[in-house]
Structure formats: structure tokens, C-alpha cells
């Protein structure tokens, strides 16, 4: 937790982009994938994701834990979707091509398979961009980038402050829970549920109180240095947009626009239907 997301400085195409263009790219890709259900569009985004990953020079093995988590989550979601609604694919596409029939209710169809695969690839396509954005952008640049995209500087600064204090509050949380255990608080799982909630509250309380103190202190310190005296502010960490930044912005927005066009004019809806 010492360094958020293990951001480390590096000299790659992606690292050298400005935060603003990365944020725009991240949002454009995320919205593209969110809005479409066409596996072909999603595949394009996946290819871009793989390229960006490669260009960033980040190794997959650094992300082992995250990838395992996500795979479990996606597998679970895959199974749950089928259990809850095995006929959803038919409803969506309006046809029924049976592959295998488990029982009267649980019939695996091509439609269902396409729907579920499309959904899974949707998740798979969004995740790399979020990860990459955080892994290749210095946290200090988040706030200025958000501000440049039109988010009020107070909200942007609040976000930056959150990142600033997460490591501090995390170690405080660890220390407090240890100190309370030393005094006799029992947070183990053997406790009865109700009692456990109470004990947790006892442990959260000093964290909350010391955080309230912290709030007073930080707010005082910020006011003393003239925070919010004007309607805007400048940022120490912000970069000028270079050629690559402009290319990134134009390209990702174009992909987004293209996907909207496909939705509107080719598929006449969010789904691509190969069955009719």
C-alpha cells in the first residue's frame, strides 16, 4: 500500500502520454465497450488493449494476482448468468439453435453462448484500460487531468487528496486494529455475528475520530495556504499536449464514434445478430 497501484516511472510510449489524453482514451474505450454488444467491435477494442499493454512495457506477471481474481469473477458470472437465465440469448436474438440440452430449462443454445461470450469479452476489454491508466499515470496527474476535462477543481482535488491519504489511513487502520486487539478486543471469526459487528464498530471508531481530527487539521492547513480563493487553480503536475497525445485523443474518439455508427446504422441496435 506504500505506493498506489505500484505506479513506477518508466519511459514508454504510454507512460509519456499526458494524463489528459490517457483519461480521454480510457473513457472513450470504456464507453465504447459499455454501449456495444457486437463481438466484432469488442474484438477491435481488445486488440487495441493488447497493443497498449505491449507498448506500456508492463509485464503480465506483475498483474498475476489481479488476473486470477478477475478470471474467478468472470467464471462465476458466466455460470451464474446461465443458471439464472439460460434462455436470455433466445429472447435477445429471437432464434434458437440448440447445442446441448441439460434439462427442460437448461438448454445451451448458440444464442446464449454468443451473448455470454460477448458479455465476458466486454469485461475483458474494459479491465486493461483501467489498469493501464493507473499503472502508467502518476497519481499527481489525475487531478489536473480531471480538472482539464471539465470536472470542478474541488472535486478533482478531493480525489487527489483521497489518493494522498489512503496509505496513511491504511497504516493507521492496521495500527489501530492491532492496538485494540492488544487491549483485549476480539475480532476473530469465532465471535457471534452481532457481537462481532459491535467490536468492529469499536475498532472503526478511533479511526473515524482520528480522521475527523485529521479533517480539521488538513482543512486548516489548506485554508491557511489560500485554498479555493479563486474560481480556478493551476496544477504543478500537468503536461502540455504533444503530437502523440493529440493522436491518441483523435484515434480513441474515432473508435468510439465508429462504434456508435455501427450501433446506429449497421446493427440497428446494440446487438449484432448473425442468426437471421
Amino acid at each position, binding site marked *: 500500500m506504500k505506493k498506489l497501484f505500484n505506479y513506477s516511472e518508466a519511459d514508454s510510449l504510454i507512460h509519456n502520454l499526458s494524463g489528459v489524453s490517457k483519461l480521454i482514451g480510457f473513457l472513450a474505450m470504456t464507453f465504447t465497450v459499455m454501449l456495444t454488444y457486437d463481438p466484432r467491435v469488442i474484438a477491435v477494442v481488445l486488440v487495441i488493449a493488447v497493443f497498449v499493454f505491449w507498448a506500456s512495457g508492463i509485464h503480465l506477471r506483475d498483474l498475476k494476482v489481479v488476473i486470477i481474481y478477475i478470471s474467478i469473477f468472470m467464471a462465476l458470472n458466466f455460470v451464474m448468468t446461465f443458471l439464472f437465465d439460460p434462455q436470455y440469448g433466445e429472447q435477445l436474438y429471437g432464434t434458437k439453435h440448440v447445442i446441448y440440452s441439460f434439462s427442460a430449462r437448461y438448454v445451451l443454445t448458440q444464442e446464449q453462448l454468443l451473448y455470454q461470450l460477448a458479455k465476458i469479452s466486454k469485461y475483458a476489454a474494459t479491465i486493461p484500460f483501467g489498469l493501464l491508466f493507473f499503472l502508467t499515470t502518476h497519481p499527481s496527474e489525475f487531478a489536473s487531468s480531471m480538472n482539464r476535462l471539465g470536472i470542478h477543481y474541488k472535486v478533482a482535488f478531493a480525489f487527489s487528496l483521497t489518493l494522498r491519504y489512503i496509505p496513511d489511513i491504511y497504516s493507521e487502520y492496521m495500527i489501530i486494529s492491532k492496538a485494540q486487539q492488544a487491549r483485549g478486543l476480539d475480532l476473530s471469526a469465532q465471535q457471534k455475528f452481532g457481537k462481532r459487528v459491535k467490536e468492529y464498530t469499536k475498532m472503526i471508531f478511533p479511526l473515524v475520530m482520528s480522521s475527523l481530527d485529521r479533517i480539521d487539521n488538513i482543512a486548516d492547513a489548506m485554508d491557511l495556504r489560500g485554498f479555493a480563493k479563486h474560481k480556478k*487553480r493551476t496544477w504543478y503536475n500537468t503536461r502540455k499536449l504533444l503530437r502523440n497525445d493529440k493522436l491518441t485523443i483523435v484515434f480513441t474518439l474515432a473508435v468510439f464514434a465508429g462504434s456508435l455508427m455501427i450501433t446506429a446504422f449497421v446493427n440497428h441496435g446494440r446487438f449484432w445478430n448473425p442468426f437471421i
Partner: protein
Amino acid sequence: MNKKPVIQFSDFTFRYAAQKHPTLKNINLTIYQGEKVLIIGPSGSGKSTLGNCINGLIPNSYKGTLEGEVMIKGMIPSQESFHKLSKSIGTVLQDTDGQFVGLSVAEDIAFALENDCVPTDELKSRAKEAAEVVGLDHVLKNSPQEVSGGQKQRTSLAGILIDQVDILLFDEPLANLDPATGKNAMELIDRVHKDSGKTVVIIEHRIEDVLHRDVDRIILIDEGEIIADMGPHEMIASDLFARYGIREPLYVTLLKYAGVTITPEMQPGYITTIDLASHKDEVLDWYCNATPAAHIIREQDVIRIADLSFAYTTKTVLDEIDFTIKKGEMLAIVGRNGAGKSTLSMLVCGFESGYQGEIYLTGENAIDKSITERAAIVGYVMQNPNHMITEHLIFDEVALGLRLRNIPEDEIQRRVEKTMEICGIDRFAKWPINALSYGQKKRVTIASILVLEPEIIILDEPTAGQDYRHYTEIMEFLKTLNRDIGITIILITHDMHLMMEYTKRSIVLSEGELVADTDSSDVLTNVDIVEKGSLKETSIYHVAQSIGIDNPKNLVDVFVSHEQRERGQS
């Protein structure tokens, strides 16, 4: 010199909304352009409150009623916009974490200018300049978690210097800094003061450390009133320090023990100015007739640390530490900020695990003991009091550990009351915690561990932010516990006086290595250890040198045993 007043209080009274009585009463005070003023006073006397009246937090942030007048650089804070005021005064608060709001050193330094909409290029160059002034230019990119306490303090200082303010206000800049870093901080503040001619106001308990460099005036506050306002020589020669429970510089105490009467003419304000030469004979006389205390030999081990190494991430924090602590000892662990002192105690208490080597508590390997089991043997009073407090009433807070141990309520009542009395917090029994000053809170947490009567107590910075009276009370209390009940006491401290006066033995850590494990008086007079441990020689060492005592350690020993005799009598 044409003196221009910049801070003026006349018949000023302030009462916090939550208080029945005023916290500041009838303050009349004028501070002139370019002066350097030290404000001292017991804990809770209203020093920080006065500071907040100067920088405008009162009445802008804290509610209360004001009477009389206050004028800062010709502005009346209650009628002026807070932002205009903040252009004139820069404040460095005691809590260095709270005011470090940037994600890196450079950003934090530039914060005030960002708010002023200064363009990014100019921000960068000005932040770099300010960082150079305070010697931080090599860590500009470091995150707040990657800089030491001393560097955080420097960041705060750079952050206000960048804005070209006229008045610099420091509220306890030395609390939690190691002695050498504290010394550097005072030198830095002094240099800034001399170079820029800014007005400097310092609030501090560690008077001798502040007087490492010149100040123009010392102002003494007690119970919200100004008791005295005079030059350092006059102040130290007066009997005010003793009367108001404030610690005088050590060399002054030593001279008094030797029977010397301190007068302003001796220029006793600084160790560099005081006239020792004409009192050399008295000191030598006293020194030769004194008998140092006898040495006690102890048997039983309570803590044994063998080859202990530890790292949080990849960087080694403790490197093959070895030492043994005997039952009934009272010893100090000292060393620079970030040396691993707190980490070491957290390992002993089981707060952190995954170490290499062995830890034995009362002869048994601690590896399999849970935190709660260890707590029955070792009590740990943490550095930050806010991390320990769970209850809203002080009584309940002190009682919590006993209640969780199912002790009968009437016994709890008795033990808690006794402990609170000893710690000087009995009058706050029904107060909510949030109405206390930092120092007062610290005493509550000490009480909440003391009340459990463990075999060993580790106190992390027990006296940081404490005034001398409470410092003495707590330390004497710990000494009584140690002597009468035989509790082993480990003090983690940056206070050389505490270490010298109350501990026979000290362990010095530096960058995770044990650099010395020897007599405290040795540590403080050995230039090599002082250097390695980022410590500071006591002024007694300088006295010994200037009057020609070959072995300064002996003078320290004589001084300490004399002091203990005095305490024993009173």
C-alpha cells in the same frame, strides 16, 4: 531601529464556544517587524490558541467570542478576508502529516501558488528555489510516505516561504524530531529569519533546543494570561521557570546545583554566551565533592532479542539487532527519525510479524504468542494518542482495558481514579476527549496502559508535546513504578534530557542498525555515537569542556545523581 508593530493584541480575550471560561484573558502583546519571539507555557495554557488568533483561524475556523482588539499587519482578522490574511502569515502546524496535502514534496511546496493560479512553469521554478533554501531539492519527487519527519517539516516551511509571507508562525516545530534534526531545523529557521528579516513566532516546549540560536524575546503564558515578556537572559535568570513548571536549560540547573546564583549579567540565555569562566571554581568544587550513585546488578532477562531483522517491503528496516533487557531496568531507545525504533517495539508487541531472528519475552519465545497474550506482558503506549482512543469520555477510555478483562466495576473505579490522578488528568474525567490538547490526550493514553499494570511498558515518545511539570510527573511516576513494583520500562525518545536523567542505559539505533548499547551518560558524551545516532550532546558536555573536566561522563553522572537526590527530597 525604527520598530514597526506587526502583531498587536490589546485587552484581548477569547472564549471557545464549548468552554465556559475564556481560554485567553486580557492579552496585551506587541510584536515588531523582524523580531523573533518564543512563546512558552504549560500544556493547555493557550499557546496554540494564541497562534490561531494570529493566523486568523480564530475567528474564521473556530467558533467563540472575542473581546478587545487584535491587529495583524494593520488588518483586523475578524473583518478581513481570511485569504488576504494568509498572504501575510505562514503557519507551520505541529501535525506535519496534516499539512502535507500534496502527493509529492514539490506539489506540496507549490500548493499556495497553485491556489493563486500561478502558471505551471513558474510554479516549477519557484518550488525548486524554495526547496533549495530548505535543502530538499534532491527529494522533490518523493511521496509523503517516502520522506522523514524532518523532511516533512522542511516541506511545510518551504511551502510558506514560497509565498513571500512576512510573518512565520511555528507551533511546536520540534515535537517528534530527533535532536540533530531539531537542531538543524532551528538553524534553518534562524537563517531564514536573518536573511529575509521576516517576523518569526515560535511556540515550543523544548526551550533549550530553541535557544540553540538567538531569540529576541520570550513570552510566558499561563492559564491564558501573559505572565512575562522579556529577553532570554532576564527570563532565564528569573525564577519564573521554576514557578510555572517550565524546564530551564540544563547548564543553568547544573550551575544552580553548584551553588551559583544566576544573574542576567552572566548572559545565561545561551550556552555560547553564558559566563562560565568566573564560576569555574564553584562547579569544580561541587563536582569533586559529589558521589555518583552506586551501580545495581540485575539478573533476570525479560526481553531478549537475537539477530532480529525485519523489512516492510524490500528495504531493510532492522538489521540483525541483538540485545537483552533485564527485569526492573529503565532504559531508552534513541536514534534518528526512521531508524526503526517504533518498528522494533511493534515487533516485540506482535503488531507486526514476519521477522527473522528471535524475540524472547520473560524467557519464552514470543513467536507463537498472540497480540493479546503479549499485551499481558508488554504494554505499548503509541506515539500518536489518537490511534489509541476509542471511548468518548476520558474515564471510560482509561477503564476500557480493565472492562475488556472483566474486572469488577468498583475495582476499576479505584484503579482508574488513582491512575488518572497520577497522570494529572483527574479533573478531566467527565470531559469528552476532543476538547483536550494534544499533550493532554497523550497523558490519557499513557494512563490507559498504566492502569493495566503490565510487566514491561514501552512508551513511544511519552513526553513529546508535554510541558515540564507533566513531564516530571509522568517520569517520576514511571520511576516509582519501576522502583517499587519492579516494572521494566522502555522509553523511545528524542529527548536527551529524559534519557540522561531517567535511564541508566541506552540503545542507539541508526538506519536499522544497533550502533551503541551502553550507559546513557556515555552516549551523550561520546561524539562518535552522537554523530551516528543523530543525537545532540547535552549542554553539560559543553560545560565540562569549557571548565576543563577531562571526562564529561563523570560530570553528567554527578549531575544526574544530584538531581535524583533533589527529587527524592521534594
